[in-house]
């Protein structure tokens, strides 16, 4: 088990490096630089631009720029002449942002607090966790209910709703929520007030969790139906056990196993879903920051965004795999 976890963590490293290389290469190929300014406005002086290019190491060869960004760089202190190692992305240092002309670093933008307000990361992480909880806590009971009442109107209603959620994706569900609850019923304001601890979170959480909710409901339903036919359930019923005990103790434990396996892919959908959910509901999180960075060609921010997203994706998958091994002792990792 330990060996398996270590191997999985090690496999993340080449993935992150390749992802970094791809993003870095693509960002470099992109026409237009971060210091391009509107030609009608006042221009940056060539000296200032030279200083900036030097600070960001933009005139170094490609591989040097990449290793400097990704791994480490040996910097020489101009006064004392001492050499020191400055870690790159693997040490959590994503460098200064281009859009702030180097005044702020990427990690400050992502994780630092902004004048008393919580960090960008806090908004995205809280939204993601809430959405996942919403999907799991509502999806499993709905799936169990539908399976126990198979072929009744409850079952059909649950199936139809979950099919809608699965096929419509967060974007459409988000638009529909905005249209119905903000534009028509006026229960929520289109411009959220983030000082309120609950209200502005409701719609984005539902929208982001909807796809996962649909998947979890459908999967729980079909796996409960499968378990219902098993011999051990019949034995439990034949022993004269209470229906509740059979459902909760004997069926549910085995029925939720497949649900854990799809939590990995679902967290992937949740993580990328934050990109547009945050824009629809104007959440000041990492997703909206990344989209802004794309518009501004802020290379360091785009790369950091991609790396952070891939990192959390790998982490989520790893946690799911380990959880699966813990819950189901039949699984052995080699």
């Amino acid at each position, binding site marked *: 088990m330990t060996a398996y976890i270590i191997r999985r963590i090690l496999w993340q490293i080449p993935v992150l490096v390749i*992802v970094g290389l*791809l993003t870095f290469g693509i960002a470099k190929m992109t026409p237009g630089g971060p210091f391009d300014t509107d030609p009608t406005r006042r221009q940056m002086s060539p000296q200032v631009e030279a200083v900036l290019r030097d600070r960001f190491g933009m005139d170094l060869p490609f591989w040097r720029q990449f290793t400097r960004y990704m791994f480490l760089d040996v910097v020489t202190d101009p006064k004392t002449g001492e050499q020191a190692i400055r870690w790159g992305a693997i040490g959590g240092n994503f460098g200064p942002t281009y859009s702030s002309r180097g005044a702020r670093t990427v990690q400050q933008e992502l994780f630092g607090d902004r004048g008393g307000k919580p960090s960008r990361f806090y908004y995205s992480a809280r939204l993601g966790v809430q959405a996942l909880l919403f999907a799991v806590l509502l999806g499993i009971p709905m799936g169990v209910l539908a399976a126990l009442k198979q072929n009744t109107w409850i079952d059909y209603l649950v199936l139809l709703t979950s099919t809608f959620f699965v*096929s419509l994706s967060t974007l459409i569900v988000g638009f529909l929520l905005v249209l119905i609850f903000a534009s028509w019923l006026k229960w929520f304001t289109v411009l959220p007030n983030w000082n309120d601890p609950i209200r502005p979170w409701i719609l984005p959480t539902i929208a982001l969790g909807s796809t996962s909710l649909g998947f979890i409901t459908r999967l729980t339903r079909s796996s409960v139906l499968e378990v219902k036919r098993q011999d051990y359930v019949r034995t439990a019923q034949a022993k004269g056990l209470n229906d509740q005990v059979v459902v909760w103790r004997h069926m549910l434990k085995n029925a939720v196993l497949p649900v854990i396996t799809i939590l990995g892919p679902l967290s992937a959908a949740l993580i990328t879903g934050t990109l547009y959910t945050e824009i*629809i509901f104007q959440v000041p999180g990492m997703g909206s920051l990344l989209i802004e960075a794309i518009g501004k060609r802020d290379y360091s921010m785009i790369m950091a965004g991609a790396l952070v997203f891939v990192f959390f994706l790998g982490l989520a998958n790893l946690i799911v795999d380990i959880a699966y091994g813990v819950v189901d002792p039949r699984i052995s990792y080699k």
Partner: protein
Amino acid sequence: MATTARPASALEELNLTATKPRSLWGDAWRRLRRNKAAMLGITVVLLYVLVALAAPWLAPKNPVTQTSNNSLRPPIWVTDNPNRQPNPEHILGTDTNGRDILSRLIFATRVSLIVGVVPQIIIVVIGVGIGLVAGFRGGWVDNLLMRLTEIVASFPDLLFIITLTVAFRETLFGKAFNGLLLIFTALAVVGWTSLARLVRGQVLSLKEKEFVEAAKALGIPTSRILVRHILPNTLAPIIVAVSFSIPSLILAEAILTFLGVGMRPSVDPANPLPTSLGQMMTDGFNNLSSGPWMLLFPVLMLSTLVISFTFLGDGLRDALDPRDAGR
């Protein structure tokens, strides 16, 4: 439909098996026809195809031409705002530039359907090709191809597509067909991995079967075995996968356009692909308070199309893989 015309089906089926040989595809079609949701899905999809093909004749107005003093008219049944009365010429109202929403919707279905089909063809070619070769060859070829698949798949697909579209957006390639060519390529480059894995898995189990061994023993060349003996047996799961992937491609176009890296608006009145549902939704979202109908109609249009494809996909899965049909 066949669903109602078959009361004594159990007995009849028994007779059928005894007298007439039944093919896999015939069986599947019979099961599909009995599935009401799938038939509804097919009908709606065909309707959309018709609308897309006949768009120039169906649309009451030109979807691009702007009329002055005609902007943000509500749909004709919304008459409660005295400052903004509907114009009877525009059934579903107009957008901020005074363009007829109904006509724009009709033309926008074209882009949605094309986005569902063209990248899908590329995905099938790449995915099936890699899956076939990896599964049949095995060894280091398999290892290499599957590592490649794993890396492409481990990148969150939306992020990858965004990076690609951002990189090439300003090039000549990125501007072709209002940016559609770039979207097609980006979607295809990212989308083939699951199909490749699916086909590889199928091939791995098929190549151990006796009929493949027999073909090998007869000295039939490998390429012929792949195309004539293995590929046809992987078709059913491929068809199911494709029917589920089409709606996700249609949604991906809407998402990309919403994030500002998708299709560009066209101002050419003669353009056969002037706008997309994603673009109409983006316009609508940006004018949510002044004209919610601008968002509502494209959202309804896209939801209907996507759900129809899902119904069809569910039906195809049940029809082609009868082992799961009882669930």
